[in-house]
């Protein structure tokens, strides 16, 4: 008897072409055979690693500096990952030093900002590492061409979506767009989301935001597509002075708003 004979294969494997669900896995007795058991473990291990991966904020700042963008670095009131996971409320507020930093920046600024873009780790630093700078570079260039006065890019550590509200409020920005790592799934450990909020203030609800989710190369949105949607939504938000359920994403109906980078 060989190991191959011990495992019962399922004669409906052709159905796999209709779904990415883990069907027709076969069985050893009634249990999961070794190969699919390890596949599930690997997918989970990658997702967990993405959640706990340290955020390379300095590297992201360096990337942005290299393309001529100013940056500011802030930290939420959650001092580490464990507290971040237990206390979403702390991840929504800045720590004291970060608040002072942004206050002094706002005092120095000659005029209020039309918008601020924030890059945040969220639940997947991996997503921020892979996609955030790319999307920000495209969007910031397109906004610059349209004459927007955009604040320095804020890089935020141990951050939840709502941290953008406090950042936008302190920088006196008319809008905040926070690019943040989404909760990793088994098939996508590096999916990035963007949340856009008009007139950011501490205490805004999620119903007052627009979301672009699933930014990742395989099966999700490309950086170019994401930047296009973001610039569309920011332009519409500025025109209509709102974000949230009343602002619909019709970006698929308009020509590309961002330039392919060289």
């Amino acid at each position, binding site marked *: 008897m060989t190991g191959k004979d011990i495992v019962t294969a399922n004669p*409906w494997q052709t159905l796999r072409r209709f779904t990415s*669900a883990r069907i027709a896995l076969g069985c050893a*007795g009634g*249990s999961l055979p070794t190969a699919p058991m390890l596949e*599930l473990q690997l997918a*989970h291990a990658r997702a967990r690693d993405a959640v706990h991966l340290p955020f390379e904020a300095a590297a992201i700042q360096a990337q942005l500096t290299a393309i001529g963008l100013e940056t500011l670095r802030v930290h939420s009131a959650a001092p580490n990952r464990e507290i971040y*996971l237990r*206390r979403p409320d702390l991840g929504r507020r800045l720590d004291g030093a970060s608040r002072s930093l942004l206050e002094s920046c706002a005092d120095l600024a000659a005029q209020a900002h039309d918008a601020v873009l924030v890059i945040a780790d969220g639940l997947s630093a991996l997503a921020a590492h892979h996609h955030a700078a790319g999307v920000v570079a495209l969007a910031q260039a397109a906004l610059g061409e349209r004459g927007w006065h955009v604040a320095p890019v804020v890089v935020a550590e141990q951050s939840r979506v709502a941290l953008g509200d406090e950042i936008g409020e302190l920088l006196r920005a008319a809008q905040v767009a926070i690019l943040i790592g989404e*909760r*990793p799934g088994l098939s996508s450990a590096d999916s990035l989301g963007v949340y856009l909020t008009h007139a950011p203030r501490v205490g805004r609800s999620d119903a007052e935001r627009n979301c672009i989710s699933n930014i990742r190369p395989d099966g999700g949105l490309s950086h170019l597509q994401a930047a296009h949607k973001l610039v569309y939504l920011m332009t519409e938000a500025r025109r209509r002075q709102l974000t949230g359920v009343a602002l619909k994403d019709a970006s698929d109906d308009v020509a590309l708003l961002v330039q392919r980078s060289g």
Partner: protein
Amino acid sequence: MTRFSYTLGQRRYAFDDLTALMARASSPKSGDQLAGIAAGSDEERVAARYALADLPLSSFLDEALIPYEVDEVTRLILDGHDRNAFADIAAFTVGELRDWLLSYETDDAALARVAAGLTPEMAAAVSKLMRNQDLILVAKKRSVVARFRNTLGLPGRLAIRLQPNHPADDARGIAAAMLDGLLYGAGDAVIGINPVSDSVSKIIALLELVDEVRRRFDIPTQSCVLGHVTSTIEAIERGAPVDLVFQSVAGSEAANRSFGIDLALLGEARAAALSLERGTLGDNVMYFETGQGSALSANAHHGVDQQTCEARAYGVARHFAPLLVNTVVGFIGPEYLYDGKQITRAGLEDHFCGKLLGLPMGCDVCYTNHAEADQDDMDNLMTLLGVAGCNYLMGVPGADDIMLNYQSTSFHDALYLRQVLGLRPAPEFESWLEKMGVMQEGRRLLHIDERHPLVTAQLPAGLP
């Protein structure tokens, strides 16, 4: 004002009110810590339990944790309290109730007799004094049977909800996962799809898909598309084949409002489903999901700990004679249940409280990728719940739900429990599996070749 206190050695612990006492006595949960209502130390937690043990059960009839005037769930609980059923236990303290539940003499019939006399708060209170083994022992005594097209909850049986979700509601993808589950012997609790879209037309299309498969193979089970209750009501009005009405429910009026529901709406939905008379063995037509932390996440917990809020959700559920109720125990994330230990404890508490209150309890044994948990933790909890006589668990292909992005239990997991605990499917479904050559004696998968009718099925019509 201090209403309750307990002195341990030199230290006197004071608790302002019944709500605070319950919260401090609760097993450690990150959600109660987040809400700022958990015990400040392990000793304070035990002091609260001592005080709770001495508390007369009737205190919960005199003092509502969420005021009667502001909350229809409280009104439902107190107005529906059955004084006759309460008579046997009316003189007990919470600690004495625990001892009574554990005694040999307290059997299924005795537990059934007092169910309507127990409020959710009493069930929650006694659960806080119980170790995991106590929660298992008492739940195991109680069998709550419910029927629609088969019989769920009989002793020695474990049913499985087949959950063939797809991230785009694709009919072929859902059909493929459904066939996979049926060929692994799952689907007796319900074939239940979580839709991505809340469009009623989409929901009707999915209902028709599952109903066609069920009728074609004469499967003794029921189907459900887990859309919002208002969508299901509209689907019924449009003539869709609705077996069960699904809704997520919580333990306060405000939390239910955040779900877009109230008790009147649930009553309306149940009446609509009953009017279709689709059940052949019984008329339990409701399917509810719950989970600790939902009230806090809606900022609608009124300072009440998450386990007590959860028990109050069962107070809502039992009013509507459901076929299925399951806590989705680890779905909400680590800010409410931090790790495998907290998820396990919550799963056992929820199953116990539900059974004690007379509900046909199942459990979605699950976790998310940012929780400190893995499949080993799920193995532990599903085994404990199997021992405790849980009515049903989830069956997700490979335990990986590609639509909801979390890990639950798999078809293989059910086969494991059938082997180690001798648990069989619902009797009608077991006969069907036998007839179809899928499973033998409810335990062992049979060899299935490529000519099996479920494999060759062109499902649904027009699909490859």
